[in-house]
């Protein structure tokens, strides 16, 4: 299995997601869930095959982490749809996943088998997978924030807010796992669990930003607009932490995490 066949798996997954999303608009819940799940299964089959071919989890390069992001974003979309029944969510998460698939097709990165010694650790897979799951959940929370700010400004329901809060809580729990797994791993690899490396600094920033959202929701439950703006700010921090850091001159000077 190689990246050459990615386009076929991706096409099959996107077609199944589109059919699923269309069924959701038409109100056919079970066909929506079945088609969408099949799409996720096809996409995951590619990830698994890559895993086997590379003889290591495909988690190292940017392109590889984007695979997981597309995967978890559609999983998050499916969970939200099956629990809260928003008709639009499947279309939105499919489009978001598609964006990352297109980026992977247009900008394939070097996908070698090589894994440098520091990455050869049992912490590697849980650290990155947990982070990508969290990013998927928080991506879905961002979609909710945009939906609320653009379409539901005047008539936001309790349910909209509960959905957003649940997505953030789930995402933040996984973000906490990812960050602390990283700290435990760094302790084993270098004898330092936290060194304020730029990637760590931005991980802390992202974590604090989502904490700010949750505490703001408790302190000012009625001010929904501000809460949604905090969520958008937090998502910007998340993007800087994930890939934006590669373009920050401050990080380039000192980070061991730039890849």
């Amino acid at each position: 299995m190689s990246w050459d066949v990615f386009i076929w798996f991706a096409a099959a997954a996107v077609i199944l997601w589109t059919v699923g999303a269309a069924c959701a608009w038409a109100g056919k819940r079970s066909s929506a869930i079945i088609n969408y799940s099949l799409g996720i299964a096809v996409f995951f089959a590619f990830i698994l095959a890559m895993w086997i071919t590379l003889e290591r989890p495909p988690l190292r390069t940017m392109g590889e982490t984007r695979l997981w992001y597309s995967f978890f974003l559609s999983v998050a979309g499916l969970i939200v749809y099956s629990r809260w029944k928003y008709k639009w969510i499947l279309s939105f998460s499919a489009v978001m996943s598609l964006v990352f698939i297109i980026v992977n097709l247009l900008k394939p990165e070097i996908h070698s088998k090589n894994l440098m010694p520091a990455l050869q650790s049992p912490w590697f897979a849980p650290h990155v997978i947990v982070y990508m799951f969290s990013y998927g959940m928080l991506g879905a929370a961002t979609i909710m924030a945009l939906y609320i700010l653009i379409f539901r400004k005047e008539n936001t329901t309790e349910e909209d807010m509960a959905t957003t809060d649940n997505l953030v809580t789930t995402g933040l729990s996984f973000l906490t796992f990812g960050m602390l797994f990283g700290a435990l791993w760094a302790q084993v690899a270098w004898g330092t669990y936290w060194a304020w490396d730029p990637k760590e600094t931005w991980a802390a920033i992202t974590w604090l930003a989502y904490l700010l959202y949750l505490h703001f929701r408790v302190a000012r439950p009625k001010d929904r607009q501000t809460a949604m703006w905090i969520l958008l700010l937090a998502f910007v921090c998340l993007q800087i932490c994930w890939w934006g850091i590669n373009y920050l001159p401050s990080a380039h000077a000192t980070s061991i995490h730039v890849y």
Partner: protein
Amino acid sequence: MPFLKKPWSLADGFIFGGGLILLGFLLQAIFGPVNWDLIASPVNLILLLALLVLVTVVYVMREKAGFFGWLGSPEAAVPAISCALFLTIIMGLTAQIPERGWLGNMVTFWPFVICFVWLTVSVGLSAFGGIRRVVHSWKAIPYTLIHLGFFVTLVCATLGSADKRDLEMTLHEGETLSTASTEDGTSYETGLSVRLEDFTMEVYPSGMPKRFASDVLVRNKSGKEISAVIEVNKPLKVDGWKMYQYGYDEEAGTESQVSILEIVKDPWLPMVYVGIFMMLAGAFLMLVTGFKREEVK
């Protein structure tokens, strides 16, 4: 003092935070950057005690004065997190190179330190509140574990940093050493005698390092000899020290006969681990039970 008595709000919190940042600038101007070496044991133990007394007193007084009650509330958490977030973003946007002044050395910048102290006190008070509620309802457990875990981690990581010994030992094959050097180059006696028997290095066809390892013979204080292989992600533990494979002679590459070991002793680490595992357990329980079951009434 009337300002302590009055009920505090979110807006007051941002003014308070602004005041703390100004105070930080003042301290920076008077004392220069925070010198973390000064809090090495036993000073950090005294600071720990002082902090615990402070948090306890504020907690007990929470109903006596508006300010004290406010400090441990979500109304204070929002500005406290915002200030810490703001200063950490500045840190993230500037290259952390100490020679470039305070912007390049945020961990010793007074406003940064003060804002994190405020956050710590706030988290500590929330943890106290959580512990009190756990007695009445198990639903407070995730909240309490996360806040208490974060408090323990922040406090022990910060106070413990001054007691941490982080040394580098550069060994040639066949050489035996007992001293290692600190970051600023001073020599330090470890009490261990370390002999590098062999250094091995493997690379991928592309030239990227695949594995590098040191075959060492270590004699500890009581004279016991330990033969072991140290490699990346596989440290060796002797007499409270941990030895990590750090580097090698990069110019020689696979032919390197030099190994650089990192030798670390961090007496506060077990407490930091306690805090980290409490946070992990709390985050897991939060995931299972969901947000706001308990917090919002």
